[in-house]
């Protein structure tokens, strides 16, 4: 471990990106994510990496994908209004299977909303913000140290599954400061893009089984191939054959669905003997954990289920610990994840919500537990 340091969540995200091997960042200023751009503007040139401030959020996403195609691990960061603008090219990255990491430090919306106030209103946008059927991976950390961990993981998953990975922060974890220890290199896994063993004449950028991906060769290395947002076949060229379109669309989802064991991450605290399960994620999970501890002190059997991978949602894991129990979903929106939890458990659930730009307090969650 390195020396403990007082660090902000956004700062830990940058440390994680550097640890994962980031080579390129493109962004546009927006509160509350701007620290990520500022810190990378300073850090990247020192390691021969590339930082660019683009003219808008749309081009930041485009440049991030372009850079990734040259073989660089690439990232961009934003908040709600910018995340809306990124959806167009985020879909392009999904379709073309170009690895990249997109940070969304959520703030209160819709529209400009309350720029400096926390919210978790982009949960469904992270899942379905761009058009068309597709899978996505979104991770939501609850602590500054976890901002580091999930950022490393986001790059790993992105490179491994050739998919954009969304880091769904909220203003609480992004701006919160905690004393953390950054692990030494070599103590955490870093995954690089797989390399092809085929000669250029035989290389096909999308020749993969339904549950996998083909290696993505960097531009300019002697492999000449085509990348398009049009639905394409295994060679990368546009197709209008129903069989090939069907295969491509199904593979975009199946490559994630068939690898849930590797992708899903969650925390289950004191759920075994619990009568009440609180489901919370991101900054809200901190209040939920405190509420659980307060309830336990009062002799109430309460557990916490905290998804870190929120898309795909760890549904089977939740079913195991929560079926038939009282379930309370606490979140800083009007019930976006609650809907998903209800769908998975097929039972009535309770909700604690706050959308006034203030975080949910442990007491508010405890009140719900106690039925106050």
């Amino acid at each position, binding site marked *: 471990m390195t020396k403990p340091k007082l660090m902000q969540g956004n700062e830990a995200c940058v440390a994680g990106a550097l640890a994962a091997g980031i080579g390129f960042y493109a962004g546009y200023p927006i509160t509350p994510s701007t620290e990520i751009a500022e810190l990378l503007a300073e850090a990247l040139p020192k390691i021969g990496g590339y930082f660019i401030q*683009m003219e808008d959020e749309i081009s930041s996403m485009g440049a991030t994908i*372009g850079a*990734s195609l040259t073989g660089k691990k690439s990232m961009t960061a934003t908040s709600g209004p910018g995340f809306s603008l990124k959806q167009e090219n985020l879909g392009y990255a999904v379709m073309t299977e170009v690895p990249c990491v997109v940070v969304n430090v959520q703030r209160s919306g819709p529209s400009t909303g309350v720029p400096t106030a926390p919210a978790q209103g982009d949960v469904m946008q992270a899942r379905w913000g761009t058009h068309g059927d597709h899978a996505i991976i979104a991770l939501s950390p609850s602590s500054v140290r976890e901002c580091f961990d999930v950022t490393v993981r986001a790059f790993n998953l992105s490179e491994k599954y050739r998919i954009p990975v969304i880091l769904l922060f909220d203003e609480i974890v992004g701006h919160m400061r905690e004393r953390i220890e950054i692990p030494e290199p070599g103590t955490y896994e870093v995954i690089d893009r797989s390399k092809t063993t085929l000669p250029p004449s035989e290389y096909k950028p999308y020749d993969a089984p339904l549950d996998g991906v083909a290696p993505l060769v960097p531009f*300019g290395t002697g492999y000449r191939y085509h990348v398009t947002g049009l639905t394409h076949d295994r060679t990368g*060229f546009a197709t209008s054959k129903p069989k090939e379109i069907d295969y491509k669309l199904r593979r975009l989802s199946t490559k994630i669905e068939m690898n849930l064991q590797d992708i899903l991450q969650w925390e289950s605290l004191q759920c075994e003997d619990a009568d009440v399960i609180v489901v919370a994620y991101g900054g809200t999970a901190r209040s939920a954990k405190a509420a659980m501890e307060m309830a336990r002190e009062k002799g109430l059997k309460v557990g916490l289920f905290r998804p870190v991978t929120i898309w795909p949602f760890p549904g089977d894991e939740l079913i195991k610990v929560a079926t038939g129990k009282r379930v309370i979903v606490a979140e800083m929106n009007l019930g976006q994840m609650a809907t998903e939890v209800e769908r998975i458990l097929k039972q009535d659930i309770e909700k604690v919500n706050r959308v006034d730009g203030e975080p949910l307090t442990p007491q508010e969650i405890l009140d719900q537990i106690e039925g106050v």
Partner: protein
Amino acid sequence: MSNGRELLRINKMPHIWCPGCGNGIITSQVLRAIQELGLDQDKIVVVSGIGCSSRAPGYLDFCTLHTTHGRALAFATGVKYANPDLKVIVLTGDGDSAAIGGNHLIHACRRNIDITTIVFNNSIYGMTSGQYSPLTPTGSLATTSPYGNIDRSFDLCALGQAAGATYVARTTTYHTNQLRDYIKKALQNKGFSLVEAVTHCPTYFGRKNKIGGPVEMLNWQKDHAVPLKAAEKMSEEEMAGKFTIGELYNKPAMEYCEAYAKVIAGAEGKK
């Protein structure tokens, strides 16, 4: 010199363009320019957006990137910036570059990043069957301007020059040798280059505006294109309805990737 077939993906033919379309003329001059300059085929990345002209890269045997509408220059900036050794060429249309992609165009010009951009200006949205674009001349007919277009059109080259492009030229599909010459110079310019190639869309623009077929449209280009030197001597009235062709701007400036290389050199090793 070979006939250039090795730069084409012959197995992707026939192309989607209409009979008589000018896009093939521009694309062939791009390839001839590349060939004459002896550029390394493996180091070229051709990027495009959406529209008729943006389909060109699919037929070209380079690393090719067919992106979202208007965003070619955003993607191209990422490609070039992250690997300055690559030769990046953007093929785009008048709608793609001047409307939905206008912001990216002016900022790519401003940065003077070493990207060669060829705008296929056919004065119309062809892919969606003939709506007016920001380069459609005022008064022209389009499916969305059935009473005549009331929009004023951009002078895209003046815009590019004002925004900071270091090589700016305009010519037409009638003037093919000149077009090749300008593309070559654009490819050799260390910085952002903008070549506007006025082309013809007989299917939508020509038919709607009763200009005629491809031959009449090429003749229209010959009659309405005024070389820079001649244009300078003509009055505003004499130039009405006509446009200037020629090398409109050519002045080197610090290239963006080189500027950033200096940032890296200064920062590397610093704690």
